[in-house]
């Protein structure tokens, strides 16, 4: 069955799924060699996994839809998941495309094509929910395309600027 390496808040756990759910709906899992019984709602979308029971401990949860963090009454913890049965590790996404993180209005464009930018440098200001949000360059490089003008409305995930 599947073996995963979970890094949560900097601590590593090897998790192995060892059994299908029993008649009570609990799934058997081995964590660092220790057997645990877990129940959770069976949802394909992570947004809707709202609770879990591990042995006798109930949890109220929020799980990021990209599995970058998990939140419970104990706070929010950073997650990293590696499938030990798959040798390839997914590279951290780090391309130079800057997309709209929320729908909104372009208030200002601070760079032009050809300009060199440093990672973290503000490149444009997106206005949404009465707030001006600074979007910054994801990495060092040269601006290759600027797809937007000030005053323009943009949709979620619309490609705004590319850094080559």
């Amino acid at each position, binding site marked *: 069955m599947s073996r995963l390496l979970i890094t949560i808040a900097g601590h590593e756990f090897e998790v192995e799924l060892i059994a299908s759910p029993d008649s009570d709906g609990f799934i058997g899992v081995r964590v660092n060699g220790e057997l645990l019984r877990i129940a959770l709602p069976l949802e394909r979308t992570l947004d809707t996994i709202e609770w879990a029971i591990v042995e006798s401990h109930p949890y109220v949860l*929020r799980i990021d839809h990209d599995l970058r963090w998990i939140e419970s009454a104990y706070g929010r913890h950073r997650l990293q998941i590696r499938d030990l049965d798959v040798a390839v590790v997914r590279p951290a996404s780090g391309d130079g495309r800057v997309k709209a993180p929320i729908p909104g209005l372009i208030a200002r464009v601070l760079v032009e094509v050809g300009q060199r930018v440093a990672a973290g440098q503000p490149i444009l200001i997106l206005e949404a929910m009465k707030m001006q949000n600074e979007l910054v360059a994801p990495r060092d490089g040269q601006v290759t395309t600027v797809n937007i003008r000030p005053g323009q409305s943009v949709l979620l995930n619309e490609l705004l600027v590319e850094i080559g």
Partner: protein
Amino acid sequence: MFKKLLIANRGEIAVRIARTCRDLGISTVAVYEVGDMGALHVRLADEAFMLTSAQGYRDPRELLAVAQRSGADVIHPGYGLVSEDVGFEQACEAAGITPIGPGSGPLAQVRDRVEAITRVGAAGLPTTQPSSRSFAPEDGAALLAEADQLGYPLVVKSCAGGRGRGTAIARTADDLLAVVRRSSAQAQAAYRDGQIYLEAAILPSRYIEVPILGDVFGNVIHMGDRDGSIQRNTRKVVTEAPAPGLSSSDREAIWQSALTIARLFALRGACTIEFVVDSTGRHFFTEVKPRIQVEHLVTEMISRIDVVREQIRIAAGLPLERSQDQVYLEGHAIFCRVNAEDPWHGYLPSPGRIGSFQLPGGPNVRVDTYAYAGAEVPVRYDSLLAKLVVWGATREETIQRTQRALQEIRIGGIQTNLSLIRLIIAHAEFVSGSYTTEFSRVRLLDALPLPPAERLRDLAAIAALAFLQHTQTVHPAIPQAYTSGWHRESRRLPD
């Protein structure tokens, strides 16, 4: 008393106003922009009219026209939007419709914040030190000269609207112009007015507010005080009442100053007199909020006064129901501002459809919100999603109950600042009550406390299962047949 009230606002405060009107038997008229058609405040009103002009909720002329068309005899502007629009208040008065507010005369006086400070100072009360005038962001040289006179650090404040937007600290001359530019742009976006002014900052300090009620006969009472020092991303997120750590003589002094200032401007209705208190307990007047505030909820909890009801009664020309001796302040209350935003990504607003929505219950817990499961958080408006307030007999009890309530709230589908609020309420400086406005510099998100090792292990196991369920959609890790107690075919419990 009034027959019909027009609610010139949206969201949480519009819902809040509609509730009190129902309690008083006053019928309500809601207005809505097209995107708010199905909003809760519309459903709770007796009549509803769509606003068609481009300015929508900010269009004084259309709001007044709807009031006249619907036969409303009073308008409640809530906070933000047209609530501090002197022209709107005057137009209402001229049209014979009562605007709920401090009166257009006092409103104009306190809206000019630099002038208001000067006037309070002239009356012999301690004030903060403002710049001699307001500035546009382009007045670079004049700003720098003025700043040198006042001395750093400085608070840059927007002339319009509330303090949530466009307030920032400039610690040196190097960052002044950048801070001014940012503040002004924020104020421009929020209030369509980019003018700013400077104020000599008192650091560390506490931000203490004294909510007052005044009637047309000149009676003024205060409703205690509250502490709004805890801010994140330049906005108040946690407010408590009474303010912790004020000696009884300092508290009494601040109340008396607030009452004097309220009389000085002949304020009517519900207003808040705001002060900065330094580390020795001395207070300095900084501004008047001439309207109901987001944080008034915390005052309602310790005073049991329905502030919206009092606003309506005062506007109807009735005298205050209670004298100062009859304002009974009891226990402690903590208020949390739940925003649709992501503190982990630069407080990026998070509009979208709310998935699950579970509110806390139990004794002494109240939530005011326009939201519900399935509601849309619109992109056009402020990110305020819900207001949580918790009451307890003592501060300790209230902190514990607030933590409990925060664990119960679950809002899915969008990002919220709930986990940030949990960190604030659990922070040693908050628990001890020793915090100041410098708390905004405490890096909460970097130093997350770790749960016990066994809980971390459990969460790792949960994450693993969630991952498998999420990724193995073609060959589910957990066969469907096992997911319920029933076998799909045989329809009976498995052995």
